[in-house]
């Protein structure tokens, strides 16, 4: 799998999930909130591919979502990039040590799901804090009852199907730095 193919897969995944998040999910969900599909993608990429892939997907997905929602451009992408960075650093602390194979963390499916939910909640709380900081907060009660809790619950529901799908699209791969690992 070349770097170009891998990047293209990420771009397509971002595009498809943004379109679904904006066009399909608001119609299909019972509340005003919609599941955060990009947060799911970012966390799964952080687990399966590392921080560059997660940060790239987060940046592009965030910019598209901000642009389509007439939101301050860069706000969501900043949160997604930070999410990818933090999840990857937490789960792959040893990945940058040297030339030996960089193995993805061996997480059970349940733990992957838990990371997705925790990541979604973190993004929603981060968004509420950021909006508060820029003077556009709408109150803790509204944020909790109308935005954060519905979004996390709906994301959990959709993630039941999306997480296995992303596991299939982005299978575990091992990269060995042959030149560096070879004896001198």
């Amino acid at each position, binding site marked *: 799998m070349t770097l170009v193919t891998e990047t293209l897969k990420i771009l397509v995944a971002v595009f498809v999930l943004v379109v679904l998040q904006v066009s399909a999910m608001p119609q299909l969900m019972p509340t005003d*909130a919609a599941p955060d599909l990009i947060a799911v993608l970012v966390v799964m990429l952080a687990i399966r591919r590392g921080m560059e892939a997660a940060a790239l997907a987060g940046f592009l997905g965030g910019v598209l979502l901000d642009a389509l*929602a007439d939101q301050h451009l860069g706000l969501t992408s900043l949160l997604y990039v930070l999410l990818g960075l933090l999840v990857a650093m937490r789960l792959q602390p040893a990945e940058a040590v040297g030339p030996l194979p960089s193995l993805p963390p061996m997480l059970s499916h349940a733990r992957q799901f838990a990371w997705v939910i925790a990541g979604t909640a973190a993004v929603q709380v981060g968004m509420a804090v950021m909006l508060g900081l820029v003077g556009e907060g709408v109150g803790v009660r509204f944020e909790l009852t109308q935005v954060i809790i519905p979004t996390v619950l709906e994301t959990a529901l959709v993630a039941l199907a999306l997480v296995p799908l992303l596991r299939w699209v982005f299978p575990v791969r091992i990269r060995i*730095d042959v030149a560096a690992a070879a004896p001198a």
Partner: protein
Amino acid sequence: MLLGNNRLIRRRVIVGLLLAASLTLLTLSFREGNGGVIGGIQRTALAITAPVSGVVHRVTQPFVDGWSWTTGLVDARQENTRLKEQLKEMGAREVQNQVSQDRLTKLEELLQYKQSNVTSDYEQVGAAVIGQASTPLKQTITINVGSGAGIEVGDPVIGPYKDGGGLIGRVVVVSGSASTVRLITDRDSGVTAGIVDGSAKGILLPSDAGDGLLSMENVKQEDVVNQGDTVITSGYDVKGYPSLFPRGIPVGRVTSVSQTDVGDPTKVIQVTPFVDLSDLSDVLVVKVGAG
């Protein structure tokens, strides 16, 4: 080891650049609003996603209609037996007919509005809703007409309701084939409006409760406002808020008038929009710029 270190450096550089790019975009969006580079990015994003969004929206619409239809049946418990019999007889064609009938009714309401004299001075374009904001904090929708149909930023958008049409928002971003509409319940929205008989005027802002209602503020204490009064766009400036809408577009109905403190020169009026903003499928764009 050298290559391993290079990979580490590359990783840090990529993530650092993405963080810096996010912060730069954020800074620019606060400085430029919807203009300049930010406006360009918004238009590009809209142009890229609009065609696919339209298809996805059309594909999911029957599921939504089917779901609404089904929940409607559940609500009518007292008619359960009769409906069950009807349900057995109804096939996909009947469901589709019902969906088509609902849509036809909404289109007739929009046509009724178009034929009224409210904004007849302006050209009006029909549009389908192909997307909506994914957060309750940002109340926007995406429609399938753009600059190719002569739509411009600032054009008012009308939604259907049983006696005609009502204001739902205004266009804020335009690409060639799609536009983003900021709804009147968005936090950044403000509409100069008044009671239809001219007895009061003020500014319509989204209610703090975020329940889809509007608050009409800056209404003088001595102005006479009654529950049930119709609220329309005023068409002129109120306290420095420039009117973006032609006069006379129906917006909603007064549902309550607040009792404010003694000495307060103004009172707050709660207004319920005529149009159900959570169920928009077809709208009308009034081309104010082309008027």
